[in-house]
């Protein structure tokens, strides 16, 4: 039986041949873990199979580029591996082989009864979410990769059936776009429009839109294997993405307002290189939660058959920001008042100067928008900010209308910044921002008392204590000739665990980089600084952020450059492994 499993296997292998496989010596299990992909795929038990798949794209569909380019074997950034499946005009491929999943995808996982029945053969049915722990297959196995058959006997699932509706607005948007683009023509067409035309138009448009939505939904599948999340999509241009779980930087479940009404959610894996198209939108809300728990458990290194038993790891709430505090903190932020003031003053001045309504409107609208986003928008987005700790990472839940649930696994944070605007200083409040490679989320705490913030930072960066203001060393006094007044804001502290640099006079920002996360160190010195015997040291991290210690004494900077390179090299040895519970 050469089924879709075989097709899957060949594309997987082609992908592996295409990129030069990163194999880090720090993870000796790597080779063993990849084995399931290379073993000839055993046909999955429950899938009837159309044998129409050609044998994949053959060898390497994309080579590693021009000849003189070599890749050292640590391709952490290789993130998703887009295995280009052959565009075989395959209409039978994805359709009939979905027999195990009934039409209503939401119910799909619950019919995992086939798991237990096949249990004797050691099919742990790995793709079931954690919620359905109704009976587990017999033989318990402790190694995550001990069951190659299960790695290929992947059960594919579909997204929630409500998904097609999210594209329902597309034809309407096209119409509106055309009307805006050419208003006169639209006006003329509208006057000619009769009821019959309208009905015919609707009769064509609605089924077409429905068909489009249905087809995109029907041809999108996802599956969880022992090591990967696979997303297969596309009717004409097929696309298969295999996202390796141990490369997960963070997982987000977001629920926009309408999705909350419909009871569905988006799930996004932050792996370097993944884009918007690698989101799973939409899943049932409970399913998304269960899938997140399962993915995290697998990424953490739990065995496949225990991964879905683990369920959602218990979370202990660390902090909840009260709405009142959030509102006050926004009122005490200069940016809020600055944008509001700009939105009020600039259009008024423009009106006095030009008396041209359009000019005023064109400038006022973006300004008002920015003011709204920085005040009300931030309040709505950061409302009910909750931080909880669980074994699989830090959970962040927030939002008034759109709810977002983010998870940051341990050891994935590249930099942490403690920002303190001037007016927060008396209350000892800080805002904590963080950078995770491949993730767009950047706030850990919108506002919190400094002590609590520091304890939360200690959980994100294990073993790190935030240096106090007294521990930070200022630049030498002659730096005042380089940057008058503001030189006092700069400070530097290097501890065993972090490189900490502060800048800003009124709005202070203290950036922390764990030594293990430093990718390269640079020293720069312009002519003016050289005359004053000063230099800057920059530390580059994997989240494309650079933290700089400015205006240091030249000798100190040179010494810092050497020692920091040494620390960054050795720091990695103590860093937690990719699979933090294996």
């Amino acid at each position, binding site marked *: 039986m050469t089924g879709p499993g075989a097709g899957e296997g060949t594309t997987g292998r082609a992908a592996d041949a295409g990129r030069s496989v990163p*194999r*880090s*010596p*720090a993870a000796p299990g790597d080779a063993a873990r990849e084995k399931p992909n290379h073993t000839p795929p055993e046909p999955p038990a429950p899938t009837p199979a159309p044998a129409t798949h050609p044998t994949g794209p053959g060898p390497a569909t994309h080579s590693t580029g021009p000849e*003189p*380019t*070599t*890749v*050292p*074997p*640590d*391709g*952490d*950034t290789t993130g998703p591996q887009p295995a280009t499946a052959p565009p075989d005009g395959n209409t039978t491929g994805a359709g009939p082989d979905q027999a195990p999943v009934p039409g209503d995808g939401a119910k799909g996982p619950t019919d995992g009864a086939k798991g237990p029945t096949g249990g004797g053969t050691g099919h742990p049915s790995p793709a079931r979410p954690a919620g359905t722990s109704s009976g587990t297959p017999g033989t318990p196995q402790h190694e995550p990769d001990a069951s190659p058959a299960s790695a290929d006997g992947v059960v594919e699932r579909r997204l929630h059936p409500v998904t097609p509706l999210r594209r329902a607005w597309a034809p309407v948007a096209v119409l509106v776009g055309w009307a805006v683009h050419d208003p006169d023509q639209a006006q003329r067409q509208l006057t000619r429009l009769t009821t019959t035309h309208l009905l015919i138009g609707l009769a064509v448009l609605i089924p077409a839109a429905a068909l489009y939505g249905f087809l995109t939904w029907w041809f999108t599948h996802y599956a969880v294997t022992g090591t990967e999340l696979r997303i297969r999509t596309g009717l004409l241009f097929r696309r298969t993405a295999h996202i390796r779980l141990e490369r997960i*930087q963070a997982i987000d479940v977001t629920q926009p307002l309408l999705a909350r009404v419909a009871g569905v959610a988006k799930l996004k894996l932050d792996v*370097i290189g993944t884009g918007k198209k690698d989101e799973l939108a939409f899943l049932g809300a409970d399913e998304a939660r269960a899938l997140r728990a399962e993915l995290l458990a697998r990424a953490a290194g739990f065995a496949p058959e225990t991964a879905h038993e683990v369920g959602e790891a218990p979370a202990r709430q660390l902090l909840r920001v009260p709405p009142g505090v959030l509102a006050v903190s926004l009122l005490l932020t200069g940016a809020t008042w600055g944008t509001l003031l700009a939105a009020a003053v600039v259009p008024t001045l423009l009106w006095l100067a030009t008396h041209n309504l359009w000019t005023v409107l064109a400038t006022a609208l973006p300004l008002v928008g920015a003011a709204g986003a920085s005040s009300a928008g931030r309040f709505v987005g950061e409302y009910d900010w909750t931080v909880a700790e669980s074994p699989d990472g830090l959970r962040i839940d927030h939002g008034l209308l759109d709810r977002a649930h983010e998870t940051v696994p341990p050891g*994935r944070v*590249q930099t942490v910044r403690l920002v303190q605007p001037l007016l927060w200083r008396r209350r000892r409040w800080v805002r904590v921002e963080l950078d995770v*490679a491949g993730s767009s989320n950047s706030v850990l705490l919108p506002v919190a008392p400094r002590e609590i913030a520091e304890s939360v930072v200690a959980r994100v960066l294990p073993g790190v204590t935030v240096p106090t203001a007294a521990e930070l060393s200022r630049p030498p006094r002659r730096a005042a000739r380089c940057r008058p007044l503001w030189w006092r804001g700069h400070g530097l502290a290097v501890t065993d665990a972090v490189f900490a640099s502060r800048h800003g006079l009124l709005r202070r920002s203290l950036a922390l980089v764990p030594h*293990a*996360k*430093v*990718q*390269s*160190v*640079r*020293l*720069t*010195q*312009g*002519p003016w600084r*050289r005359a004053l015997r000063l230099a800057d040291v*920059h530390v*580059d*991290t*994997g989240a*494309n952020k*650079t933290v700089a210690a400015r205006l240091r004494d030249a000798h100190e900077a040179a010494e810092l*450059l*050497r020692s*920091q*390179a*040494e620390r*960054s*090299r*050795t720091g*990695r*040895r103590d*860093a937690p492994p*990719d699979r933090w519970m294996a």
Partner: protein
Amino acid sequence: METGSPDDTGTTGIPLAPHPAGPAGEEPVWTGLPPGLLRMRRLLLVVWLGLLTLAAGVLPALFLAPGWAALALLPLALLAWGWVMLGRNWRSWRYAERADDLLISRGVLWREETVVPYGRMQLVEVTSGPVERHFGLASVQLHTAAAATDATIPGLDPAEAERLRDRLTELGEARSAGL
């Protein structure tokens, strides 16, 4: 290819290539750039500014008064200044392979020194444009997971560039560490 274990990331350093690096902690052994790059840059400078000098000397003299030919002194002065600057800049470039990291130092007025631990390298690239190829030059570029890492060594001998690439790849493999 031999891949080391994480344990031999110590300060010993395996001499993998004919150029053994100085052990970490000691003064690095700096290597300058071969003179080919300077020759190429100076030739390009002379060609372009020479054309400009010619244009500035001839055209105004033809259409205006002959005295306007003095305009040609401007690109000529630029040429002399550029000649010196290129020399200084070329002399400032140097790199050192240490046991565990690569140092690149450059710049005269704006100096910059970069340290990249071998274990953080994601990609080593050797590039060579048509003009560079004519002069027998190639440049080596190191990429890490941080885009800000700007570690390029221009104007190397192609054989040296390839040796460096292979050595860096090998060392990167032995000391591999990710994000």
